[in-house]
């Protein structure tokens, strides 16, 4: 079977929800978000920039609010049994804004760009793209024959290793597909397949998108069916001020707001839209740093903490309780493990056994990289650990400082962003020796279990395999993972069909204003 249901909601196989029967065309959607520079989509560092271009430059696949990935510019895809050959069948009838047809050449052009190390695109780090690259003379370059154009609308990729998440990778924000004639910067080469085009982009101020109605005198036919909005405006507001801008009715919707603003949001007239995500705060202990080299200490920490009690303190609405491993309920390949129970006495006993009969003092570095709630969570942990005789000092440091030490600190609270598949994070963060393995966790057993899960395309089958790896990780007590946090955004009552998305990717094709 295919990794994701290639079945769409309607016959056209569109990734978007079905049209609302009451939908009215027209109107301008004003969104508060940071407006960034958008010189080259392949080198975007932030989601916001991709949101600015997302209605103009589209992707091969699209992960919906439900975290399910569906074909977008591709019509469908196929993978070989060994997951080393992927064939993408491109949608026919997709037009560029300059009138050109969208073809496999366009896709090839994009992959060639991404794999060119001189461009510096982060896409080269995606497991799918990196499997097309070899090291030659100390420089990475595309392997000959890795990309194969079968016909105008079919393209095949030959990979050096099995890759499970190719379709998910194709909706990663810097993988927007540009025209084969693209030359940065984007302003001088505005061309896309989307229903809208950017007419004005002033960094730090505004980004204005208008519906494309005609191309070279011909009416423009958007492949994705009806879109309702005439224009989409992004106005630059800092994260902190977006909700207040919304409250002041300057905008109709906002990019996001923090949990600390929830009460305020509730008091404002509008719809709060929460998305379930796999974003989390991973309070990991470095297994090769004192005192965490002793597994009993780590275990005592995890045993003394009741994640279920912490979550409502930090995120009263939405979100999931974490289970001290890195697969989230929102992941399609998640399978619940045996529930965790808090055991203070057990924790004390373990500590005593580890040579700390009078308790122990630990210090956690908190960078609040994702908002002040990190600190709130750490404080809740501190209160619980006290019961087991563990004194937790919370060392609050600036975000930029935290990012300098995040892989080295013995005990740190790191924010991990959402990734569509459970295997993706597990493999990025916990495989022996990988660069982002911040806990220093090294277990051949775990690696083997993960390999097996990654080689399995079938989701149902993969669940069990991934659960095995998760169990190993949980048993090793590498981390306290209290919360899978929700993301919140807000739209006014007149905005209909405003989608929530776990990574805040905007897709407004079916949004309409009443």
């Amino acid at each position, binding site marked *: 079977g295919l990794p994701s249901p290639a079945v769409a909601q309607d016959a056209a196989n569109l990734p978007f929800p079905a049209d609302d029967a009451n939908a009215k065309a027209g109107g301008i959607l004003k969104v508060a978000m940071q407006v960034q520079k958008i010189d080259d989509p392949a080198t975007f560092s932030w989601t916001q920039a991709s949101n600015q271009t997302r209605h103009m430059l589209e992707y091969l696949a699209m992960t919906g609010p439900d975290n399910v990935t569906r074909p977008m510019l591709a019509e469908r895809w196929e993978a070989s049994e060994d997951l080393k050959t992927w064939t993408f069948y491109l949608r026919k009838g997709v037009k560029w804004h300059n009138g050109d047809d969208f073809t496999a050449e366009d896709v090839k052009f994009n992959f060639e760009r991404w794999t060119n190390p001189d461009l510096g695109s982060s896409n080269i780090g995606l497991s799918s793209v990196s499997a097309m690259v070899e090291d030659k003379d100390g420089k990475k370059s595309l392997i000959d024959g890795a990309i194969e154009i079968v016909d105008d609308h079919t393209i095949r990729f030959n990979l050096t290793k099995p890759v499970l998440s190719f379709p998910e990778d194709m909706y990663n924000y810097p993988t927007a597909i540009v025209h084969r004639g693209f030359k940065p910067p984007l302003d001088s080469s505005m061309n896309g397949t989307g229903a809208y085009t950017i007419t004005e982009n002033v960094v730090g101020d505004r980004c204005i998108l208008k519906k494309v109605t005609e191309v070279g005198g011909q009416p423009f036919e958007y492949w994705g069916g009806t879109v309702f909005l005439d224009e989409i405006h992004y106005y630059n507001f800092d994260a902190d*001020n977006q*909700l207040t801008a919304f409250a002041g009715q300057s905008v109709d919707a906002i990019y996001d707001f923090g949990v*600390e*603003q929830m*009460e*305020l949001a509730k008091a404002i007239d509008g719809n709060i839209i929460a998305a379930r995500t796999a974003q989390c705060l991973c309070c990991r202990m470095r297994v090769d740093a004192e005192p965490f080299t002793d597994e009993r200490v780590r275990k005592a920490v995890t045993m003394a903490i009741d994640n279920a009690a912490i979550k409502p303190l930090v995120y009263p609405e939405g979100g999931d309780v974490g289970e001290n491993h890195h697969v989230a309920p929102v992941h399609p390949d998640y399978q619940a493990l045996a529930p965790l129970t808090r055991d203070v006495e057990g924790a004390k006993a373990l500590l005593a056994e580890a040579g700390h009969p009078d308790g122990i003092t630990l210090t956690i570095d908190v960078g609040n990289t994702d908002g*002040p709630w990190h*600190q*709130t969570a750490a404080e809740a942990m501190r209160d619980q650990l006290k019961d087991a005789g563990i004194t937790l000092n919370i060392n609050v440091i600036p975000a930029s400082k935290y990012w300098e030490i995040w892989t080295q600190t013995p005990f740190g609270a790191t924010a991990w962003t959402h990734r569509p598949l459970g295997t993706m994070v597990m493999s990025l963060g916990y495989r022996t020796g990988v660069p982002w393995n911040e806990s220093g966790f090294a277990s051949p057993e775990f690696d083997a279990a993960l390999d097996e899960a990654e080689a399995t395309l079938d989701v149902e089958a993969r669940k069990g395999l991934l659960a095995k790896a998760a169990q190993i990780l949980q048993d090793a007590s590498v981390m306290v993972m209290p919360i899978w946090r929700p993301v919140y955004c807000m739209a006014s009552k007149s905005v209909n069909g405003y989608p929530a998305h776990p990574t805040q990717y905007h897709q407004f094709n079916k949004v309409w204003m009443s």
Partner: protein
Amino acid sequence: MAVTEIPSGPSVLDRLSKPKPVAVLVLLMWLPLMAYVMFGQAIGGEARAVLLPAIPATLILYVLGIRAFRESRVAVIGLTLVFFWLLMAVSAPYLPLMDPNKPIAPFTTPFTERNDLFFWLGTDFKGRDMLSRMIWGCQRVLVWGVTATMVAYVVGAMFGLISGYLAGWWDEIISFVANVLLSFPVMVLFIVILNYLGPSGFNIVVAVTFASAPAIMRIVRGLALDIKTRDYVYAAQTRGEHPLYIMIFELLPNVRGPIIVDACLRLGYTTVAITTLTFLGLGLQPPDPDWGLMIRESAKTAMLWKFSYMLLVPALAVSSLILGFNLMADGLREMSLRD
């Protein structure tokens, strides 16, 4: 003015009003507060014990102040406002307040009860008690504000005396540096310095020194230029005193008057500056309460009429303290003009 005879039986208060006891009282009030705020963590557990002598000292100083300022109603009002906050600062740990950093019940409006607790001024977005945060908040503003002003004065007065008294090349160089600093708008200076050094109380002291010392230097220089032509300075010179002696013993005591008035005003400015800087994210850092921080944090959440108290409380608190300083300055000036 008239010859002021000291009455035969001086009362306790009279005896305390002499410079020496006052200095001791000020130190008794100030050092513990400074130690508590700056090094509270290093002192550890029973840090609040250091504040014990400060409370009576503050009260006695207030009474002395009222006596000294009784001629000017304005000054008395100012003094009362300032000492109210000083008293709050030294006694905050002993007041029956909730933990200012503990999230209890978010967004509780003033005068309501939640979780069996009554919140006089409500709670902020994290659920921390506003009353307790407001009272604790004055500690940091006061300590850092006064320390920063003091350091600025020491530096400014030193250079002012050198520049004014020695004149010549000293004056040219010091005045040029002062001009460079004065040509920077204050905020630019603050932003650049704090951005470079990183936000913290000690760095605020540095920044305020850089920003205020040139102006103070100018004032002192002007006064020194005037005073150095007084006959008593010539008298000192003609008996061969060292310039340092003349600067410290002959000039310095006589620039005191105008400087004290200016210092009160400047304390006001510094308080504004610290609050503003904290609001801009360049000043004091979370989590401990501080008025600027309270404003900064709630500026994001209080954008509804219902929640505006979160902004109102710290805004009024900081205004009242500054009003206190300004009224004191006004009163002092008024009294100095009358003599």
